[in-house]
């Protein structure tokens, strides 16, 4: 008996706790289910209220008012949908006692269609908002930033004058442009398909084109376009030094000038000018061409005369312009009437050498030395240099069949048989 009672006392508290837990869970579940499935409070029926739609500068207000002699109950759900190009704009609210209103900050100009629903009553309508006056700052877009006065299409101005709500205004736009020669140009543009545009005049002179826009009381910053010269249409070439020795000591000097476009504007600094030989009436061919950038409409060029003495013609070209031809002369580099050479042991003594004028040639003037075999074959070529008109040239080790040496300088050739002392 005691054991049974003890067992019973052990079981009862646990059972009580489980029961309590189960009861708590049931209550919680019941509350949750009831809240999810609570029947919607039935709204009393009411006559269709009147709807007034009032657009203003910062949005639109939908105001529902109870019909005459009727009540609009409170707590009625209402929704308004605007059909916009960005999709449906939905606003929801609940009615207060006597009326309801919804305000939507939608300010886009153009046609807007709406649908409204309050309780079981639906409404449909539309309004058309006109854009307001343009506001400062206007933001003209001028393309391109730089144009040539010859050859390029003119720059264009594009403008979307906007009101305070970012609507493109329909106000006409006034454009004023001032050219580098101070002449002014004015045009009034109408706004079509959300923009106003026009080509801008470039005139004939280079410099800066200044553009200003206005629309009513709205203004924008000045826009500028750099007016650049066109490609070269004319060029002149002359030589400050037309004759130079073939040694390269005193170079030719060419002056390309008068580089201008078709309208007489000096071409842009940095425009490339190509100078090359002209084949016409040629005495001697010259394999030569060079390209240089212009500066101030000029190119000054110095370069050594042709190594082969003779007459040469050169021409300058840039863009479509080609200059006349200039004649240049390359003279014999060194006029030496005599070239004494003798052998002293293992040394060749060259000189003393004097020019036709009786002067010593420049130190460092090269002297060519060549060694030949009996059959005329060149076994060695060498170069040595004059110092005070002379050279002491130490003979190098030569093949046994070497029979002679040639020394050349300034068109003179001296030969020496090596077998002789």
């Amino acid at each position, binding site marked *: 008996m005691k054991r049974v009672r003890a067992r019973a006392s052990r079981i009862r508290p*646990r059972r009580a*706790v489980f029961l309590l837990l189960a009861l708590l869970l049931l209550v919680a579940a019941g509350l949750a289910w009831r809240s999810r499935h609570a029947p919607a409070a039935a709204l009393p029926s009411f006559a269709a209220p009147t709807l007034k739609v009032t657009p203003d500068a910062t949005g639109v207000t939908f105001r529902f008012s109870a019909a005459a002699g009727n009540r609009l109950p409170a707590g009625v759900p209402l929704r308004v949908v605007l059909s916009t190009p960005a999709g449906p704009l939905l606003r929801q609210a609940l009615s207060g006692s006597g009326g309801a209103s919804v305000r939507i900050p939608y300010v886009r100009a153009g046609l807007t269609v709406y649908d409204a629903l309050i309780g079981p009553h639906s409404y449909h309508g539309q309004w058309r908002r006109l854009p307001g006056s343009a506001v400062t700052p206007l933001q003209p877009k001028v393309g391109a930033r730089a144009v040539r006065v010859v050859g390029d299409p003119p720059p264009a101005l594009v403008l979307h004058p906007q009101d305070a709500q970012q609507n493109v205004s329909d106000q006409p736009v006034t454009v004023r442009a001032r050219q580098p020669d101070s002449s002014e140009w004015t045009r009034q543009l109408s706004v079509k398909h959300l923009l106003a545009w026009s080509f801008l005049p470039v005139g004939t002179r280079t410099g800066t084109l200044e553009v200003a826009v206005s629309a009513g009381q709205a203004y924008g910053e000045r826009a500028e376009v750099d007016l650049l010269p066109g490609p070269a249409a004319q060029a002149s070439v002359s030589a400050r030094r037309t004759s130079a020795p073939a040694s390269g000591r005193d170079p030719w000097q060419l002056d390309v000038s008068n580089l201008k476009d078709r309208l007489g504007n000096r071409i842009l600094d940095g425009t490339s000018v190509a100078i090359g030989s002209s084949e016409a009436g040629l005495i001697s061919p010259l394999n030569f061409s060079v390209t240089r950038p212009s500066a101030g409409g000029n190119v000054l060029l110095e370069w050594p005369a042709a190594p082969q003495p003779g007459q040469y013609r050169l021409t300058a070209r840039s863009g479509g312009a080609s200059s006349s031809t200039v004649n240049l002369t390359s003279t014999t580099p060194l006029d030496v009437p005599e070239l004494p050479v003798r052998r002293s042991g293992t040394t060749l003594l060259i000189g003393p050498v004097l020019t036709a004028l009786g002067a010593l040639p420049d130190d460092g003037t090269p002297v060519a030395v060549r060694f030949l075999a009996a059959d005329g074959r060149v076994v060695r070529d060498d170069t040595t240099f004059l110092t005070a008109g002379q050279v002491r040239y130490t003979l190098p080790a030569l093949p046994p069949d070497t029979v002679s040496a040639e020394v050349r300088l300034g068109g003179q050739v001296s030969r020496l048989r090596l077998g002789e002392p």
Partner: protein
Amino acid sequence: MTLTRIKQLCWLLIVLGFIAAVLMGLPLLGNAFSRAESTQIQNSALNLLTERHAEKGSLMWLPDDPGQPRVLEDFARDAVTSGYRRGYEELAYALYSGDHSGLPSYYQEGALSDAQLVTAQTRLAEFADWDHRLTLHFYAPDGATVSFTDQYWYAQGEDEGKRLTIPRLARRTVDVVMAFDDGNWRVHHWRVLADAPVAPVRLRFPALAGQLARIRGVNYEARSAPFAALWTKFDADEVDRDFAQIRRLSLNTVRVFVPYPLPKDAPDTLNALLDAAARHELKIIPTLLDGYTAYRLADLPRILTMLDTLQPQLSRPEVLAVDLKNEADLDAPKADWTRLRFVLGLLADHTRTVSGKAVTVGLIAPDPALSQHLDFVTVHSYAAPGQTAAMLQSARTLRLPVLLEEFGYHTQTNKLPDPHTEADQAWHYQQTIDLSARERVGWLAWTLFDLPNGAVPGNRSVERHLGLLRADGTAKPAAVVITGGHASAPSGSERLSRWRFLWRPALVLLLIVVVLTTWWRRYRNRA
């Protein structure tokens, strides 16, 4: 303190601790659920985008205005088109998901203000746009600005649970300015010039009621490839034989089912079906959108493209009428009637325009709101003839021609709790055909063959036993009825014979019961 008290105290502490854990954990769970729901919504929105991006032919350029300061190069036109279309994709995503972080990539200035305002205020909105026709007015000489007018169709509505509230379908004309910013084209300004629904041109079919009343037809599924398999394993010879068989049954109309999405060669397959119908002097009622149950606005452009693709087939003289969707009322619990009515109504008007044929939606019982877009209504009934009669009479109140588009009776002899014999089926057909004659309503039986192979709706076994002809092609008594024969009500013995399949199992069960009872008695007696 006794041991009992201590135990009680421990249990009390455990219970209190559990309650505290629940109270603290529920908000966390709610938060996690909310995040999961938000992610799921964004994923759904992205799924809509994936399908949008696959659309073709939803935008075209009309001839440019003459006198442009610069001709719009092909590469620039492609870039403008791409930026414009992707902007709408981003907008559709933002409208549904509420995530508008991507909008500045496609919109600036006033257009961006509008897009951000709309997507901040609106959630779970559906917006579909299609058939964009653009006319270029201006392309700037510096290649950085374009202005054009866009005319397009749109459909919108709010997804409130399953309901589609305040739906709208309209054609809109809008001026648009796009600018080339940092290598991308973006919409900067827009203005709506016109926005209105366009009433469809409603064709009239004065002879329709008579044509429908004369329909004696069958719903067709090929034995070797029923339902969707017909469109991937099409056997022209089998179809030709089956259509010849249908003609021999003195039937004049065949209903076929066209799946959605459209299989690759569907236009050719439909042409082959129509060619076979022409050879055997049959008319066809194609039922479109088979298998489609979503009714999302985002699907509209693709469905409309499908209708345009099938236009040559749907307008053929072999097509008697077009059924837009089979038993859409079964989709209503999932998709909701508001959505069904809007989408199917819109599609019905378009189908009529495209095909020039009378259009219906193959509902089980007509819907008054949807019927305003239809040229005739349908009834599907597998119930007793009395109930079918009531459905037909109810359908008549809509003052449109009525077609009994589906009726049938299975012959599965071992179907509990309602087994049928072929004689039952023949009697059902007799009654229904007589009823249809009285009501002057055409009918199409479900279905031509028993279908032992392939997938059947819901994988229900009765669906395999609804044919007029057995799987081997031989005729059931019901086939005799439709060719002019007569069936009478099953006799008592025939009714009893329905349960014949239970005799053997019942005998076996009786035997087992007897054996067990005998054994138990012997056991108890021994005890």
